[in-house]
């Protein structure tokens, strides 16, 4: 990796530790004020609408945790008032907050000489796509679309661990925008656009993939052909509509494809190179602003036999072949349950029941509407399924571990992150350093964790998968807890260097109620844990907060403790 955040991280830790110590002294010195309560309004508003009940607010908060990158108290109230269906409709209708325009603005600032002091530092350019991700994710109104795109980025994985993708910020921001644009479109378009995106062409090496050359003993690259089936559409085994694996007469799972199928699909994905002006096949200079273009002279001629059932005739253009290949994968009965189950895992719960998967797969298949692959229908089915919306139960297995990226983004969104330059400038290097997670930075095409990861011990005994636990190592749990400490207690919120201005959080709404530990914990339980904080956890935190008199400090420690607690880390 070309970037090295170690020195900055060390500086950050020292800074945060110093700040925490200062705050601690201030808290000791100024203890006992106990104040901060605003006076209650003297006149109630006329014709008050019936305010949402506590249960309705908790329910909205719980839904928001599955459908957004984090929602503050006002947003939760608004959602409870409008209802979830109306909120979804409004989200579907919002314009797309794209990331590439933010990158372009940063490039323009760079070209105007604003970062001259860092001209030699390629890290600046590398940072731009990270900065754009954080700014957009934290500030975007279309948070549902952003959240779904992030989930898609963990299925259709490309990563900045490839040099050609890390050095040009247009590559990955453009790829992410493609996911955003397709998040509420049709899955077939999504699969085609993923296939034709130059970032994917580089990551899975089907850009400049040549037809066979018997004289030179060369054959088409099989990489994309394999992964598009294994990971992006049909998976390894024939599935029932509820996502369970079909077995043959020998009791073994039935493979969906053979090595021959991979070789046939590899032929489909030949002849693609970068688009743009002056395009030619074999062009080694990546261009990321247009989809890859087909060069028929380099496309494998002849028939292709796909998955034993479809014959792609000889004599078609290369793009006709690609479209035919996409159709085969899109229309395969596996694709609905295979993709549906992963979206449920990314957004809602690690161990959905087969019935839940089936309902989502039927939405994918368009059973009710006749439209196959409608992503709005799929997203709605995932988020509003009865299993997702049933009352929380601590004794059940429903739930999931929040991902580090999602936890940190929620912290910034739920506590009013702001900056004097109106730019939420975070590189995410600190977060990645402790958690090994950052958007579009997975170690391989298999994402940060596997959908079937089953931690040993109690979870294996209970036959439960918990994908996110794969990266919840000792160091990651402690490191992420410290990062939250630095941000909430130490005011060290983001890690972008000058000339970007620091980001601060706003705790004033919480300080306003902090005179009562009970009121403070009510609000934190609503916004962070959606009413699912265990009474024993609440009692433990209350015991601490009762000994912290300064309201500012009481709020910060309260947020820190809730956000590192197992009650917040795992939502159900």
């Amino acid at each position: 990796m070309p970037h090295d955040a170690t020195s900055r991280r060390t500086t950050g830790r020292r800074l945060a530790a110093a700040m925490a110590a200062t705050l601690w002294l201030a808290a000791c010195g100024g203890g006992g004020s106990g104040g901060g309560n605003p006076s209650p309004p003297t006149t109630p508003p006329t014709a008050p609408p019936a305010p949402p009940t506590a249960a309705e607010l908790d329910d909205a908060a719980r839904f928001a945790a599955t459908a957004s990158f984090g929602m503050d108290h006002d947003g939760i109230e608004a959602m409870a008032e409008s209802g979830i269906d109306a909120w979804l409709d409004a989200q579907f209708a919002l314009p797309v907050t794209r990331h590439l325009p933010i990158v372009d603005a940063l490039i323009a600032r760079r070209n105007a000489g604003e970062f001259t002091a860092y001209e030699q530092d390629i890290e600046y350019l590398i940072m731009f796509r990270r900065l754009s991700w954080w700014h957009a994710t934290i500030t975007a109104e279309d948070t549902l679309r952003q959240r779904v795109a992030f989930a898609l980025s963990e299925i259709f994985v490309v990563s900045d661990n490839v040099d050609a993708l890390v050095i040009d910020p247009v590559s990955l921001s453009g790829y992410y925008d493609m996911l955003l644009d397709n998040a509420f479109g049709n899955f077939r378009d999504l699969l085609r656009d993923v296939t034709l995106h130059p970032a994917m062409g580089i990551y899975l090496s089907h850009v400049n993939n040549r037809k066979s050359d018997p004289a030179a003993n060369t054959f088409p690259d099989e990489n994309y052909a394999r992964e598009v089936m294994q990971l992006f559409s049909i998976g390894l085994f024939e599935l029932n509509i509820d996502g369970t694996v079909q077995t043959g007469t020998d009791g073994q799972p039935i493979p969906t494809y053979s090595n021959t199928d991979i070789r046939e699909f590899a032929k489909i994905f030949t002849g693609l190179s970068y688009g743009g002006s002056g395009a030619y096949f074999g062009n080694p200079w990546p261009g990321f602003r247009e989809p890859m273009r087909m060069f028929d002279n380099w496309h494998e001629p002849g028939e292709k036999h796909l998955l034993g059932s479809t014959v792609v005739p000889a004599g078609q253009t290369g793009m006709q072949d690609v479209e035919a290949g996409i159709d085969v994968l899109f229309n395969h009965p596996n694709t609905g349950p295979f993709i549906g189950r992963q979206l449920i895992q990314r957004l809602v719960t690690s161990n959905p029941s087969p019935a839940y998967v089936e309902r989502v797969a039927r939405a994918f298949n368009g059973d009710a509407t006749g439209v196959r692959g409608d992503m709005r229908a799929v997203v709605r089915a995932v988020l509003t399924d009865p299993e997702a919306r049933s009352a929380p139960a601590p004794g059940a297995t429903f739930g999931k571990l929040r991902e580090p990226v999602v936890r940190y983004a929620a912290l910034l969104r739920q506590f009013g992150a702001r900056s004097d330059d109106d730019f939420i400038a975070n590189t995410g290097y600190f977060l990645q350093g402790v958690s090994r997670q950052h958007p579009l930075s997975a170690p391989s095409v298999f994402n940060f964790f596997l959908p079937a990861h089953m931690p040993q011990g109690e979870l294996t005994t209970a036959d439960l998968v918990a994908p996110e636990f794969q990266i919840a190592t000792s160091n990651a749990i402690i490191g992420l807890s410290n990062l939250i400490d630095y941000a909430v207690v130490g005011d060290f919120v983001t890690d972008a260097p000058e000339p970007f201005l620091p980001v601060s959080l706003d705790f004033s709404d919480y300080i306003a109620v902090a005179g009562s530990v009970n009121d403070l914990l009510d609000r934190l339980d609503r916004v962070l844990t959606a009413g699912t904080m265990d009474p024993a956890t609440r009692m433990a935190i209350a015991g601490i907060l009762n000994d912290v008199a300064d309201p500012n400090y009481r709020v910060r420690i309260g947020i820190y403790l809730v956000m590192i607690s197992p009650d917040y880390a795992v939502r159900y």
Partner: protein
Amino acid sequence: MAAATTSSCLLQLGLARSAAAQSAPGYRALVCVLLAGGNDSYNMLVPVDDDQYNEYAGIRSDLALPKAELLTLPGTTADGRHYGLHPGMPELQALYTNGDAAMIASVGTLLEAFDAEAVAAGTAKLPLGLFSHADQINQWQTAVPDARIAKGWGGRIADLLGDVNVQNGVSMNISLSGSNVFQSGDSIGEYAIEASGDGAQGISSYDDGTDWGAFKKRMIDDLLAVPQQHVLRREYARRFRAAIDAQAVFVEAMQAAPALQTPFSEGNFSQSLRQIARVISVRDVLGATRQTFFVTVGGWDHHDEVLDNQARMLPAVSRGLGEFRDALVELGVFDEVTTFTTSDFGRTMTSNGKGSDHGWGGHHVVMGGNVIGGQIYGDYPELSPASPFDVGRGIYAPTTSVDEYFAELALWFGVPTSDLATVLPNVRTFYAPGSASPPMGFLAP
């Protein structure tokens, strides 16, 4: 029924554990280096005799390395052949020449000895998901090619032998690369550390001697003392508590580590090996008699630019191994530590015009004071478009199974013969535990 089976397995495991604990000699460590993505090892170990080099060059076409650049290894194989290393691996050449390292030719996942006719006829028993990353990287860690399981052979060893170490929360299995299958067992998982600092980070200020640190300790301890009702929250709370406790033990031990005189390069692999050497240097403080280490070097999936990428990446591996050897000699434990490479698979000998695709058998490196070095173990297949080992597109089937490779390592590490099949469930297909001869013979007993 299921319960009875489980308890009798546990009983057996318990008996095996105590037997193993009694028979354990002095300290030993295995260091597993995973070249993730599938190293194109037919360009790491290359025939240099004219006839076989010419076959190699003809099949590899634009991926062939120039013969003059290969680093020739001394000696010949049993069949009188000569081989050379990738030009970027002079340290490995020196290790091999000095007898500190050996090469293992053409290892791969197998369910039965390779039979070209049976494979062609479709009657052979083949590993699940052959040529697929997810399956093959998994099976190289589980040594179970006919099932998709999450327990590795290093984890199974730890289940058997873990009791020989002091039980202080720091696992026998230490990972420089986070969670992994190799080190996951039934009751023991990996302890993941970082290459930097003392490897494990603590909760900021926790119990650091200040008033604030004491308060911090109270906060965290109170929070984690809560009995959690939800199964996933319970798992998180358990990990959190264990992380804090193990970190205290681990860092205290690491602070006693002597300063290493051996210089290490900056790269992640070298720095990881340096950290492993430091952990080994405090093995007595940690109370460790047996340890496994796991380190991943990623990015070997060279469908593209395989020549340039290997020219950049293989030198880092070679350099790291050389540095690690020097550090272990400095610490006086080179005989007690055996380092071995693994990878998803070898790659196609033929080119896709830019790189190579997923293959099967591949070549590997073992290094250590107990390694009978300067030799190539296993059969390097004769290269020819008509080779029976070529299953298509220049994919060479393995001549040695991972079971034979790992059995040699496991027995050396102290797994009793009677438990070898517990650690390597398919080993009997390739090696009779208790046989008078070793599985491969590359380690001095």
